[in-house]
């Protein structure tokens, strides 16, 4: 069954936030 728009949006945003968090962690850990 196809996921609703809201579900897909939440999944994609969660994945993007996870990617940002990972990149931010690297920047915070090594760039400061």
């Amino acid at each position: 069954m196809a996921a609703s728009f809201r579900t897909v949006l939440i999944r994609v945003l969660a994945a993007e936030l996870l990617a940002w968090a990972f990149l931010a962690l690297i920047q915070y850990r090594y760039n400061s």
Partner: protein
Amino acid sequence: MHWINWAVVVVYLTYLVTDSIRRARGVNSIEGYFLANRNLPWWAVGLTVMATQLSAVTMIGTTGQGAVDGMRFVQFYFGLPVAMVILGVTIVPFLHRAKVYTAYEFLERRFGARTRSLTAFLFLCSRGLSCGTIIAAPAVVFTAIFGWPLPLSVAIIGAPTVLYVVIGGVQAVTWADVKQMFVVVTALVAIVIVLLVKIPVSPDAALTIAGAAGRLQVFDFSFSLTQTYTFWSGIIGGTFLMLSYFGTDQSQVQRYLTAKTVEEARRSHLMSAFWKIPLQALILLVGVLVFVYYLFVAPPVFWNPTHARAVQTADPNAYVQIEREANAAWVRRSQTAVELAGAPTADRTLRRAQFKSADSAYGAVRSDALKQAEKATGGTVRDVNYIIPQFVLNELPVGLAGLFIAAVIAAAMSAVAGELSALSTCTVIDFYRRWVKPEASDAHYLKVSRGATAFWGLVACFVAVYAASLGSLIEVVNRFGSFFYGSILGVFILAMIPRARASGAFFGLVISLVAVGAVSYFAPNVSFLWYNVVATVTAVVTGYVISAFSRGAPERHMPTNT
């Protein structure tokens, strides 16, 4: 290059072409040739969407950018995931259910032939030329590094691509792209592993050094219209660019029109939504690690061997002097890097400052060297695209270098193949079948389609051969593409507004093109990512206002989204 590396490249190319042609057997209609009978699985479509976007420039240019500029380019893709979700509920279902061949064909149903022809014409002009530049970028690098004549480099990339696209159409393109993505990702992961093994300090220390050199600065929250790679330009301008590119550019639209169902088309887009940012981060990480690697192994002063030869010939004494200065600066930088890697936490601030100062000094020597190269060659010198090829050929183990060269060729081929297929579809469906010969047999259209693919393949190779000498003109061509992306997106948005009329769409499109031209002329420093925002908003607002003053009912209704 070692013969085993060449063997890897030759075996891969031979397998790719023969298997693509084999899989495309039985293509006997234009629906099969252009849309694979709308029967491809979502994962294959998802991979071809990613492969079409990923060109050789990504493999050698973006990795090189990672080495000199760090990770911040990844912000360019921050708008992509949300754009994919939006497209999944707007343009994707509309186009897929409309059973069209091209995005522009859909526009005729809504706004008439005038708008369709103009948008299709803009696509052909821009993509026909940019297809050549996609081949030219790696071909120029191969020519400089291997010493091949440029036409040969172009032929190595262009000929097999044209061959399998002409014979197999989109079916061959898709299955070739699936293999290309596999090779590209394998090569990137293998290089990261090799780099981590070869760099003589721990991964943590390597990243500490990269961070000290500013290479791990990802986020830039400054709001500047003139900078392309900031968080806001990525989120706002990037979203508009990705909506335009994936939603309205035939080279991408054609990809998801081949999916079995609307749901599969949506799923194929979500693959990019989930994986594009990690993939781009991996590509940039390769560049960052190559930067760290060359802190411990002396790099060439000139990454492009033709620059080294030009300076050596023009002024041998100056060349020796440059080499000496660069070596002294590199030794100093290398020492400070080792000291930083081994420094206890309390000492890091001081060591970091010392390394930064040594890194700046090395950068200054390099920029003087590039000025010498500019004097010797008489042109602008940029050698970012040569960093990764030099590393691959000189430092990677036998076999893996061949795999990377194969991956670069694969990336170029997959990007060009998608474009060729789209150019051919647009030529035949939007012009030949629409204006020249509306009633003909499928066999006739299939023959013309193959001819059109071959024609665009020749145009691409021709442009690629001359691209190197055209220099700044190529930049104009690339900017030209971004001039009308947003305008076409605006027309598609108008198509979804019931009150929009044909005259509004057409004049909205024209006015938005003029608006972007004006921004580019009067404010040349504004980053091209903002052009998409300006164009889309102008097209929608002016199109809507003109529609409001237009009389009459809508000319046609678009297919319903149910």
